[in-house]
């Protein structure tokens, strides 16, 4: 039997109380948010932050970003990864851009390890927003992993002049390590999106 895929539709502007209810102050629990760690999570604490910019460079206030990542040893909390990940670290985060004054997304998490030999550490990122009939997949790599990034097999699929759109810039701040990256939907700096 072969069935056809159900078509995608936009998440719309009002996803918040269904998907990110706690973040927006609605009285409903949420399955994932901006904080991925607890006191037991092993690994280097980092914050990743950025904006989603439209074709005119304006920050999008009704986008939702999801991240999916390995733990500090490169293991995924999923039955198809036979290695055992950190207890309670799900590796999944969700953040809407509508509650930050600058319409940023941010995640407090740990820097992931390389999932396999030859791969560079990275996040998978899913971009959803009003005006997007289909979500978009991208990856976020780290500016302090230049050597691993250059050897990464997925990065090598990307034309060299566009690889920079996938690299988050490491910034040391008094409150900790931050990685900054903006998602550009269009334009000269258009983020690389993958057909996953």
């Amino acid at each position: 039997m072969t069935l056809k895929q159900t078509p995608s539709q936009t998440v719309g502007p009002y996803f918040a109380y269904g998907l990110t209810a706690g973040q927006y102050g609605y009285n409903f629990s949420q399955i994932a948010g901006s904080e991925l760690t607890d006191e037991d999570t092993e690994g280097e604490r980092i914050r990743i932050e950025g904006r989603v910019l439209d074709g005119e460079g304006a920050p999008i206030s009704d986008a939702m970003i999801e991240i999916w990542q390995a733990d500090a040893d490169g293991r995924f909390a999923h039955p198809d990864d036979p290695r055992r990940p950190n207890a309670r670290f799900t590796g999944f985060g969700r953040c809407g851009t509508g509650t930050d004054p600058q319409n940023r997304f941010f995640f407090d998490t740990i820097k992931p390890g390389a999932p396999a030999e030859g791969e560079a550490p990275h996040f998978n990122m899913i971009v959803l927003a009003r005006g997007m009939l289909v979500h978009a997949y991208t990856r976020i790599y780290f500016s302090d992993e230049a050597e691993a990034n250059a050897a990464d097999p997925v990065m090598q699929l990307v034309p060299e002049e566009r690889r920079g759109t996938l690299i988050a810039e490491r910034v040391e701040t008094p409150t900790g390590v931050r990685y900054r990256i903006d998602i550009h939907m269009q334009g000269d700096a258009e983020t690389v999106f993958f057909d996953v």
Partner: protein
Amino acid sequence: MTDQYRPRDWDSHPPYLHAGYKSTVLRSPTKPLIPMKQTLSEMTGPVYGHEYVGALDADLTKNGMVNGDPLGERIIVTGRVLDEDGRPVRNTLVEVWQANAAGRYIHKTDQHEAPLDPNFFGGGRCVTDDEGRYTFRTIKPGAYPWPNHYNAWRPNHIHFSLLGPSIATRLVTQMYFPGDPLLDLDPIYQGTPESARERLISQFDIGVTEPNFALGYNFDIVLRGRKETPMEA
């Protein structure tokens, strides 16, 4: 190594740019997507099961009650989550959100001049059973105006979000109702390739209807399946 998931079927999904839906114009990627072979990163994904679902989360006729029942036509929405090979997608989280019977979201930025219902929240979630089935009790959402073009109205719809077994199977979609005259006028629905549009429409089912309580609708959802393992030579 686990089999990869089949690619997204671009004959089924809308394009990023569909000018009739004006918000896509500045938000659609303009460069071609870069095809990639899925690695473990894409073949795995978040696992959320029953422990994340509260007792009333799947009953939207009750989960927002303050001082009475919500207004509007009560409905039951049920269906199976299947993969392309017709296999049930079990123990997977289904999240929904919707407008109330008057066509108003409780969202803080929804300024539509229709009444809020103090007893209707409009958000819910449940987990599929061994047959891949989910079931929600809710209120039929109303149509509402939006600023896309002159006299633009969204058809009645419920938003659905599914993660499925991996991030490759991630899907956000909308369920519409049969016979809705607004479907032919709605650029979001019309953005879908014509041959795939009917898959977004639920079916009225008297067998799902609960006597003296609510009408019933069926809405099956199909996620990407896995590729067959190629035979070694």
